[in-house]
């Protein structure tokens, strides 16, 4: 079994949980004897991994034979049976951008046809990718789609049985590859636009998500929570969706080194982006409630994001600066250190497709409170769960755990028991079964 996988990031080129999850899944698949070719926008000139084979889209030659020679925008437009949704109004700016890309490719093609024998499949791509999430993201996503065309085309050297695309960034590429190769497509939903943006969704992103889901043969959701979202918000038949929970990367399990705690008070940790989606304000308000009752505790908000200034100002208003701390964005050792210093981890996400941080907390024997609006709460049934908006209940739960070491220990032990059953290899096994069924 050979899989062509489209991703947007892969370790060490990662900015969020997506890359980590992709790594876990591919490693798990390899152990299950599934051969994976993993495409990312760019390797930035680095060799990424021995296994799986990771290829940058900017190294893939375009299947020029597939693209007719065109010299004018009109010709390009006629040719643009490309992506039905592109013709809808919100996409018109991208439409123009696509025209340009096509013209550029055509120009390359007509130039190169003069010396046809030179380029065949030896030339590099004419497309540049940053693989970031910057201003030109939408353009890159669409260009990435062209790579799907190429790699799925008859002339491509890549042979595969199934196509697997991770999140909306790669859905266009996945669908194009499916059209070109007539192989089944599986789209993997790690997060939806509703998780990222609440109700104020980016319509373009939503359209691409739906386009991917509609054209996929199967959909993998990282949780039942996400599956429900897909059914409700994207109007997809639930029978088409499989749930495969994420897992913990055991290779990243560090031995818990007992760091010296500088402060004797109990410490309650929030670690994540400080954005609307993660519900930092509920953590802050609950902390203020706790501090009215219990003095022997400190709260730490670790992470950065657009809501940070608001959170700092609110904390100042609540006058709890002697007990509530901000660390900004943490990386590397500092992350390990903050987990190890903590006595309670709280995840207040408003909408969390899965959520890996509670697992990380458990690796450091830190008990967890997680919001019911998260995928991880489906897996860690022994964790304390709350509705993210229920600040009073959250405060109550915090107080009982920090004041009762036996309860805290108990939560950790039982959650860790549950964790034993969830590894990437199990997840990959389920994914393999989905491949075999399509």
């Amino acid at each position, binding site marked *: 079994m050979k899989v062509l996988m489209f991703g947007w990031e892969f370790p060490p080129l990662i900015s969020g949980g997506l890359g980590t999850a992709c790594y876990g899944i591919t490693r798990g698949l390899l152990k299950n004897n599934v051969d994976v070719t993993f495409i990312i926008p760019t390797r930035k000139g680095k060799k990424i991994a021995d296994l799986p084979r990771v290829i940058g889209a900017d190294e893939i030659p375009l299947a020029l034979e597939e693209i007719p020679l065109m010299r004018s925008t009109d010709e390009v437009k006629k040719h643009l049976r490309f992506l039905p949704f592109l013709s809808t109004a919100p996409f018109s700016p991208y439409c123009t951008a696509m025209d340009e890309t096509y013209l550029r490719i055509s120009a390359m093609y007509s130039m190169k046809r003069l010396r046809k024998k030179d380029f065949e499949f030896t030339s590099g791509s004419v497309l540049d990718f940053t693989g970031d999430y910057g201003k030109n993201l939408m353009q890159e996503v669409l260009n990435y789609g062209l790579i799907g065309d190429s790699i799925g085309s008859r002339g491509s050297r890549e042979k595969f049985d199934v196509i697997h695309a991770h999140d909306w960034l790669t859905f266009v590429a996945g669908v194009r590859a499916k059209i070109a190769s007539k192989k089944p497509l599986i789209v993997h939903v790690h997060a939806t636009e509703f998780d990222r943006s609440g109700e104020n969704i980016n319509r373009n992103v939503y359209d691409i998500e739906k386009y991917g889901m509609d054209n996929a043969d199967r959909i993998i959701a990282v949780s039942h929570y996400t599956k429900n979202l897909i059914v409700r918000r994207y109007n997809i038949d639930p029978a088409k969706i499989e749930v495969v929970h994420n897992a913990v990367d055991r290779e990243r399990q560090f031995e818990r080194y007992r760091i010296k705690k*500088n*402060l004797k008070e109990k410490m309650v940790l929030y670690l994540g982006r400080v954005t609307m989606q993660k519900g930092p304000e509920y953590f802050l308000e609950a902390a203020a409630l706790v501090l009215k009752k219990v003095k022997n505790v400190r709260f*730490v908000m670790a992470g950065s994001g657009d809501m*940070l*200034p608001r959170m*700092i*100002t*609110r*904390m*100042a*208003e609540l*006058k709890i*600066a*002697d007990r509530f*701390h*901000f*660390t*900004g964005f943490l990386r590397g050792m*500092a992350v390990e*250190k*903050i987990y190890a210093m903590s006595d309670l981890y709280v995840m207040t996400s408003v909408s969390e497709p899965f959520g890996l941080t509670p697992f990380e907390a458990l690796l450091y024997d830190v008990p967890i409170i997680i919001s019911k609006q998260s995928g991880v709460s489906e897996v860690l049934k022994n964790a304390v769960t709350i509705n993210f908006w229920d600040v009073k209940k959250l405060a109550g739960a915090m107080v009982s755990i920090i004041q009762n070491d036996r309860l805290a220990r108990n939560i950790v032990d039982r959650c860790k028991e549950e964790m034993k059953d969830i590894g990437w290899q199990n997840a990959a096994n389920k994914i393999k079964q989905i491949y075999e069924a399509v």
Partner: protein
Amino acid sequence: MYFQVHQPFRLRKDYSFFDIGADHFYEDDKANREICNRVARKCYIPANNLMLELIDRYRGKFRIAYSITGIALEQFEKYNPDVIESFEKLAATGCVEFINETYYHSLSFIYSKPEFRRQVLKHRAKIKSLFNQTPRTFRNTELIYNNELAGFIEGMNFRTILAEGADQILGWRSPNFVYQPAGCYKIRLLLKNYKLSDDVAFRLSNRNWSEYPLTAEKYASWIHSIAGNGEIVNLFMDYETLGEHQWQDTGIFDFFRFFPEHLMKRPDFGFITPQEVGRQYDPVSKIDVPYFVSWADVERDLTAWIGNPMQNSAMEMVYAVEKEVLKSKNAGFIDMWRKMTTSDHFYYMCTKWFSDGDVHKYFNPFETPFDAYLVYTNVLNDLKHTVRNGKEE
């Protein structure tokens, strides 16, 4: 003419949550040293030399005053002893008055009168020991002033107090007379002529200003035109105006070099120190200032230091531990705590100009007011923690 000299002890920008309870070194030694060295080179040393030159040339007729904060003096002692030496030379001429303020350039009057008194006395002792003068003139941090302060200062036996000649307190009246604070009977109030002061401090090098270029001669003629409409002109400004805020190439040094000559072309004009004004002039009327005024920004109020939630929280937090810190009787803790009362820390947390990227950013070592607040509270939390642990041991 009175010049303000101040350099805060800046905190380490990287003091993080992880340092609380572990690292008790808070000061950004490198930045403090570099800034002191730079300003000494560009301003303090050349400006002092110029003033010495002028005092020498005019044989006692050129007279000026300085207010140098205690923490600025401490940093000069640490990094630039030659600056201290040159101020000592100025003191020895007899033509220079040193003004008293809070040692730590703090807003303590608003939050703790006992602490305010201690900081004033500490500054007085420092001036006495370095310059062998007992100050009789007082200026509060950033010229923050109200009736109550004046009364308190009169009670401490000062003869003269300085304040901003803000429109909201003067109304139709002119800053060019000696006043008396409402409710006081002895002390004299000198009000800054902000128009003439700011012409030099802010506008001198502004090419868009209709009066550009400002020559000493033109400036002296403006002051001469006051004759008959006033008795004194109070020019108060940051000393760093010379060479640091206005770079040398703006001609600022030459401006001051020739200003006395042009001013004293008319025999009825001369230089006088605040203390001498207090002795020689009677107040023309009382001035009622029930609310605080300052010399900062267009508002001339306290909103540069207090008002937003971060500033209020930080301010309350630092004064809330006063008793505990003083009780520790540990000189190191007490000194560090007092350094935390320095107004600059709160100034950095000001959000008034944050969105505009205003010139005030020039003075702010932090990227944003939020960073400033977080470092401040981290340090204060460690200080609290250390004081408490010290007590237990």
